[in-house]
């Protein structure tokens, strides 16, 4: 006599209620730690310190240029004045760029 197979629902319910084996809590914790330790990239502290130092140096340079500009005699030529202004603007742009990349780096770090 052929037996009618059981409909899947009771078997499914039984398996879902009791069929899942759990690994030990110690193993679970150590696995998470291992995965995180292996696949999380290291922090980028050295670059941040470098960026601050670069900013400081550029700021000092900019201050020196401003001082030179103000200390120059009135009869200084227009060419010299224009080139000095260009140097100040260039230094300012460099500072701005450096600051911009530093902020982006900080944002990436906080996202991690």
């Amino acid at each position, binding site marked *: 006599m052929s037996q009618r197979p059981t409909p899947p629902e009771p078997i499914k319910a039984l*398996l879902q209620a*009791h*069929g*899942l084996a759990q690994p030990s809590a110690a193993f679970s914790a150590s696995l*998470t730690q*291992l995965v995180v330790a*292996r696949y*999380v990239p290291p922090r980028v502290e050295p670059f941040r310190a470098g960026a601050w130092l670069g900013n400081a140096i550029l700021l000092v340079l900019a201050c020196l240029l401003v001082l030179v500009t103000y200390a120059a005699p009135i009869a200084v030529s227009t060419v010299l004045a224009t080139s000095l202004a260009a140097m100040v603007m260039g230094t300012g742009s460099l500072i701005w760029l450096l600051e911009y990349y530093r902020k982006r780096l900080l944002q990436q770090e906080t996202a991690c």
Partner: protein
Amino acid sequence: MDFFHPPSAEDLLLRQAGQGQPQALAQLVQRYQALAYTVALRVLGNPQDAEEVVQDAFLKAFAALAQFQRAAKFSTWLYRIVYNTALTKKRSRPLLSDLPSTTEITEEHSVTGDGWEAVRHADQQKYLALALARLPPEDALVLTLHYLGEQSIAEMCVILGKKTSAIKMQLLRSRKQLEQALTQLLPTEFQHLL
């Protein structure tokens, strides 16, 4: 990113894990470790070996996360890695330790209880474990993947490397075998479950 198919929560989680975000990595481990462990346990029948296999499988999966094709589900891909790692482990280990301890458990619980209600809460898990232990490991694995892991027939084909017809047949046979095993263990009580 496809404008018409925005990324699912799991896609975002996988992307964050790929970028090395610790919360995402931990969340993926927590989400899939129990079933990965159950799959390994069904193949190997030994908790220590199963834990070892699960650890290896997770490390392999995260190392190759960049190569993971989004066409398949992450769970399907992970369980395939777990299954293959467990098979390799099983082949490499001595034959003696391969035997699950089914006989001793069966003798211990051969007498049925006073009624289904009595065994329903505390003993259901025990009797299910006994019944699953009576099945061939591959059949118990098919039931686990389909009913617990909610893997479709097509996904099970990917995990186990078999054809659709073979998986369907095996699923039907496994269900019948589990039913028979439960009926043998609990001749009257099992009928109340249906």
